[in-house]
């Protein structure tokens, strides 16, 4: 009991560990996949935005190179057509020689641009963080672009669904920060689970915005269904293993019980024999000792007649005691007598009985290389107790197989015949063994007579008793060609 409980505890512990380890592995794998996806998206976003920024540089460079050409009066300057081409370019400003920028921020930016020989950023005139200006100093005319941060996002090439993607994308410049895509704000604010983040400045020195991508993977986003599925699979496999184990244990237990039963039966038999020996030996010892003492007393000169007489009386009394023991034994093991045999007896087909026994003994036949030949031309039905007939046939077949162990396998034949006589059904079991020594033939059906080493000598005795109990006979003979034949005859079924 304790053993099985401890075993079960280990099964539980192992199963839990296996399920937990698998679930953690699944979760990790899922997190890693999500992280890789996130990083790919972030890199794409960075590349797209960088391309935009580089494009701004290129536009300014082109403007500076071309300088304002002659334009027909009354028409807009060429550069003013740019906002129509690029929606995120909100305005284009120019400062011609000897003119001044409308505000100081632009002037300061131009100074820096002159020094660094590249475009320089300036804040929007109204301080709107969504707008910035880009100034390039050139001779004679310098240009400035006013750009919309949100407007420069190329949504058509965007790798995510901007409205329902959980990733937050922003562009940051110093303290200023513009969200291009808000992402899953609630999760990002709660901050539970795993946070992925990506920071990288745009690949344009003139516009040092930092691309910031963030994603929060919450507990609820773990692949719970798959994890639960794994746990269930582990549980199912363990349950199956436990069931198989249980079945095997049950089978082993059944086998052990069977063996135990056989041993117990043998022990009971041995105990019975020992008890019988003791119970009979005591009076027999007394009988023998008394008669032999009497013999000696009578041989004395003069004979001690009185003592001898007493001894003989004792001997007689003890002989009766021995007879009583035998009587008690018979009463103890007597089979209940059937009041009316015809009521419990059934119709038995002898060939069927033979086939049943052969089926049971098939492994024995195969092991010995014996192929039984069954000759049953027509159905022979007798009145008998089916169990008793089965027992007799089984016994006769077993004896025949064992009798042929002494001869060459090639010689072994087992011939079984069923035929109808005038008043009886006959079943013959003929073997090709060594036969029965003629002097032993009359004793074959005596109880406790066995020609086999270690044999109890009860098998044939029991068979004969059973056959006679059903109004039949069992006889044995040697065959002319060698081997023995046993013949069972049982009364035929009365035609009704």
């Amino acid at each position, binding site marked *: 009991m304790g053993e099985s409980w401890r075993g079960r505890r280990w099964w539980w512990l192992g199963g839990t560990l296996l399920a937990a380890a698998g679930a953690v592995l699944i979760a990790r794998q899922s997190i890693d996949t999500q992280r890789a996806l996130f990083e790919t998206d972030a890199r794409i976003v960075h590349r797209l935005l960088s391309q935009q920024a580089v494009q701004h540089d290129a536009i300014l460079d082109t403007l500076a190179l071309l300088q304002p050409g002659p334009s027909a009066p009354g028409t807009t300057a060429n550069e003013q057509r740019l906002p129509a081409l690029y929606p995120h370019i909100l305005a284009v400003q120019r400062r011609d020689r000897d003119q001044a920028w409308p505000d100081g921020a632009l002037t300061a930016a131009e100074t820096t641009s002159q020094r660094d020989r590249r475009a320089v950023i300036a804040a929007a005139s109204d301080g709107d963080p969504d707008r910035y200006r880009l100034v390039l100093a050139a001779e004679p005319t310098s240009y400035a672009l006013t750009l919309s941060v949100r407007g420069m996002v190329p949504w058509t090439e965007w790798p995510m669904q901007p409205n329902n993607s959980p990733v937050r994308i922003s562009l940051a410049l110093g303290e200023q920060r513009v969200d291009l895509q808000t992402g899953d704000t609630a999760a990002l604010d709660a901050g539970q689970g795993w946070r992925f983040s990506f920071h990288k400045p745009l690949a344009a020195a003139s516009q040092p915005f930092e691309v910031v991508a963030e994603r929060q993977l919450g507990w609820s986003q773990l692949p719970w269904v798959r994890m639960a599925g794994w746990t269930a699979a582990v549980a199912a496999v363990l349950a199956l293993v436990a069931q198989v184990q249980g079945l095997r244990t049950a089978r082993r237990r059944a086998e052990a019980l069977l063996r135990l039963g056989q041993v117990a039966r043998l022990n009971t038999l041995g105990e019975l024999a020992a008890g019988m020996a003791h119970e009979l*030996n005591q009076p027999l010892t007394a009988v023998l000792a008394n008669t032999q003492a009497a013999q000696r007393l009578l041989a004395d000169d003069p004979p001690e007649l009185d003592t001898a007489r007493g001894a003989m009386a004792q001997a007689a009394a003890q002989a009766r005691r021995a007879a009583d023991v035998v009587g008690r034994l018979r009463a103890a093991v007597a089979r209940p007598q059937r009041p009316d045999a015809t009521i419990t007896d059934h119709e038995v087909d002898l060939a069927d009985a033979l086939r049943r026994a052969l089926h049971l003994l098939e492994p024995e036949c195969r092991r010995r290389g014996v192929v039984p030949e069954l000759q049953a031309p027509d159905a022979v039905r007798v009145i008998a107790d089916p169990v008793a007939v089965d027992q007799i046939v089984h016994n006769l077949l077993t004896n025949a197989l064992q009798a042929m162990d002494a001869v060459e396998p090639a010689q072994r034949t087992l011939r079984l015949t069923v035929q109808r006589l005038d008043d009886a059904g006959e079943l013959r079991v003929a073997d090709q063994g060594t036969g029965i020594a003629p002097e032993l033939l009359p004793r074959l059906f005596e109880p406790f007579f066995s020609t086999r080493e270690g044999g109890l000598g009860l098998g044939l005795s029991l068979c004969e008793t059973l056959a006679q109990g059903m109004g039949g006979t069992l006889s044995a003979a040697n065959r002319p060609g060698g081997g023995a034949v046993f013949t069972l005859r049982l009364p035929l079924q009365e035609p009704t």
Partner: protein
Amino acid sequence: MNTLSPTVHLIDDDAAVRESLALLIGTVGLRVIPWADPQAFLSAFDREVIGAIVLDVRMPGISGLTVLDTLVAQGVDQPVIMLTGHGTVDMCRRAFKAGAAEFLEKPVNDELLIEALQNAVRQHVRSREHHLADREARERYAQLSEREREVLGLIVAGLTNKEIGRALDLSPRTVETHRANLFAKLQAESLAQLIRRYAALVDEHDAC
């Protein structure tokens, strides 16, 4: 019958067996004391008397083999004949190993039983005689003085009086006196008898 005639103790719980065997054994002049209860036998029987013990293997309460073990453990020297109704080889081996003199199967033939009993009694008498002689020799040997034991040792070793005198730094006359004394004390009539009876004791003493 006097108490010195050989006595057979017969232990069997079955009255009929006990009485018939007692009658049978009695026909050859052996005294039989039957016992129904092995425990009563163990606590009351006369351990000094010459004789033998006949013991049934299968008895209620205590097995014959256990009784045999107890007897051997107590140093009882009467030979034990075991009787059994269903002797197995194993049981037979156990009985002999435990010290049984004979192992007979019931029902037992009179000649077999009586011969076994007579052998057992003879064996017991011999062992008692041997034992008695041994005890007397020890008692006599114990009466010798230290010097006489030395002289005896050298006599047994085969030395002459002269050689003994030289070995023990004694005059031959003194050796002769010791020799005469120890022959008298040990009641030996000849040198051969002396050596036969006491050589073992001298060896035993030297070894100590």
